[in-house]
C-alpha cells in the first residue's frame, strides 16, 4: 500500500484500468473517494454495454502490460474485496462543495485522479492544498487537450501517456513521467481499453518510482508550449482507427 496517496475515482473504464494496475503492482491507495451517485444516467468515459475484448497479441507485449482488465467490473465490490478504506461521494461532480470538503478534510496529500471525461478541476479543488496526480492520454507537451491519441496516431503513428500534477492551466502542470506506445492491434478498442492501459502503465511507472525514491521527481518540469487539441471529428477518428501507419 502507498503511504499518503489517495484515489479520486469516477465510475469509468479508466478507473478500472487503474485499479487493476494498482492491485497488480501492490500500489494500492490509503483512501479512495468514489465519485458516484444513485443516478442511472450514463457519464462520459463509461464503457456502456460490455466492450467486446478480442484475444490480442498485445497481451504479451511489455508496453501493453496493463491491458488486461474488465472495463465493466462493479467497482464497490472490487474495492471491498481489496480491503480498501473508501467513501462514496454521493455526487459525480468533482467540483461540488460536498466533494471538495471531503477531499480537503482527508488525510492523503496526493490523490490519483481518475475523473469523468470533460470535467475540469476548478480552483476550489486545486486550492485544497492536495496534489492531484493525473495521467493525460497523450505525449506532452506536444499533444495537449482532448482525444489526443487519435491525433498522434494520425500524425506520428503512436499513442502516448503523461503523468502530471494538475494545475489551473489544462495539461500544463509539471510532468513526472511520459511514454510513447505503438499502435495497438485492435484500434477500435482505443477509447475504453488501450488509452486507459497506456495511462495505467505510466501511472504504475510514476508510483513505483515514488515508492522507490520516497519523493516525486519530474521528467519535464516546464511543460509549457505544445498544441491544444479538441475532441476529434468522427471522420478523422475513423481514419486513425482504420489506418495502418506506424512509427518505423
Amino acid at each position, binding site marked *: 500500500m502507498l503511504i499518503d496517496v489517495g484515489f479520486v475515482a469516477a465510475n469509468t473504464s479508466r478507473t478500472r484500468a487503474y485499479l487493476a494496475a494498482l492491485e497488480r503492482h501492490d500500489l494500492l491507495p490509503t483512501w479512495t473517494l468514489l465519485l458516484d451517485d444513485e443516478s442511472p444516467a450514463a457519464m462520459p468515459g463509461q464503457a456502456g454495454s460490455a466492450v467486446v475484448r478480442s484475444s490480442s497479441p498485445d497481451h504479451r507485449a511489455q508496453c501493453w502490460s496493463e491491458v488486461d482488465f474488465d472495463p465493466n467490473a462493479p467497482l464497490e465490490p472490487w474495492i471491498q474485496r481489496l480491503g480498501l478504506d473508501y467513501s462514496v461521494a454521493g455526487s459525480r461532480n468533482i467540483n461540488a462543495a460536498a466533494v471538495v470538503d471531503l477531499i480537503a478534510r482527508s488525510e492523503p496529500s496526493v490523490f490519483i485522479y481518475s475523473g469523468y471525461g470533460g470535467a475540469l478541476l476548478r480552483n476550489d479543488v486545486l486550492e485544497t492544498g492536495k496534489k492531484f496526480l493525473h495521467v493525460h492520454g497523450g505525449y506532452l507537451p506536444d499533444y495537449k487537450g482532448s482525444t489526443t491519441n487519435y491525433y498522434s496516431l494520425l500524425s506520428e503513428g503512436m499513442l502516448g501517456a503523461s503523468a502530471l500534477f494538475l494545475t489551473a492551466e489544462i495539461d500544463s502542470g509539471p510532468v513526472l513521467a511520459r511514454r510513447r506506445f505503438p499502435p495497438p492491434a485492435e484500434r477500435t478498442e482505443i477509447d475504453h481499453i488501450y488509452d486507459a492501459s497506456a495511462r495505467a502503465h505510466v501511472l504504475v511507472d510514476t508510483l513505483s518510482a515514488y515508492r522507490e525514491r520516497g519523493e516525486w521527481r519530474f521528467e519535464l518540469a516546464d511543460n509549457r508550449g505544445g498544441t491544444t487539441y*479538441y475532441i476529434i471529428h468522427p*471522420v478523422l477518428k475513423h481514419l486513425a482507427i482504420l*489506418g495502418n501507419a506506424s512509427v518505423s
Partner: protein
Amino acid sequence: MNYPYSANNRLHEPHAYMYSPYGGEAFVQSYVADRIERLLRLSASTGTDCTAAEARAHAVLHRLLGVEDGFPISRLAVSLSTLDVSEEFVGQVVFPATFPNVEPVKTVALLDALLNSFLDYSPESGDGSTALQWLERLLQRFEVSKKLRARYLPGFRKGEGADDDVGLYQQFALVLALAYAHRQELQYLSALLKVNDLLLSLPIAAHAECGGGHALVLAIAVEMHAVRRLAQQQGVSLNVD
C-alpha cells in the same frame, strides 16, 4: 448507413462529438456521399457572383494544394469551375490592438482580418503569428460552445450577441480551410469538419439569405481533398471521385 452529423440543424442542436461510435469504412463512405449530395444541392441554388476575396482564396488554394495533388476532387470540380480565380484582391489585416483584447471584438472584423491574413500568409511574418494566435482563440471558443457569437468581450472568453449569423460560420470555414492548406495541422481540419457539418445541416434558404455559398464550396473542397490525402497516407481505401 447515414451520416448523422449534418442530419439535424446544428445551430439548434449542437453536437458534442464525444465518444463517437465506430462505423467502419461504411461510415467514412457515408460521409463522402452526404457531403457531395448536400453540397451539390446547395451549389445549384447559389448565385454565380463571387466576391473578390473568394476569388483570391480560390487562387491561393489552387496554388497551395495544386492541380497535380488532385485538388479539387473530381466530383466537386464542376462546382468550383464556376468560381472566379484571381490574385488581385488584397485586404486589410487589422487585428485587435492587444492580445487578448481589452475592448470588445466584433467577430466579423476578426474573421476579415484572419481571412486577409491567410490569403497572404507567411510563417515568418508578424502578421502570420498574430493570425495563428487569434485563430487559436476563436477556434477554442467555437470548440467549447460549437457557436460563434457576434462579439467577444475583453479577454475573449465571454461572447455576446447573436450566434446564428450564417455568414460568420461560412467565413470561419474558409479561414480554417486556408489555415489547414498552409499548415496541415489536424486541429484545423477537425474544426473545419465540424463547421462544415453545421453549415450543411442548415436549410438552403439560410445560405441564400447571406450569400457566401462560394466560401462553403471552397471550404468543403479543401476538407474533402484533405480527408482523401489523409486516408491515402493511412493506407485507408476511400472512394471520393
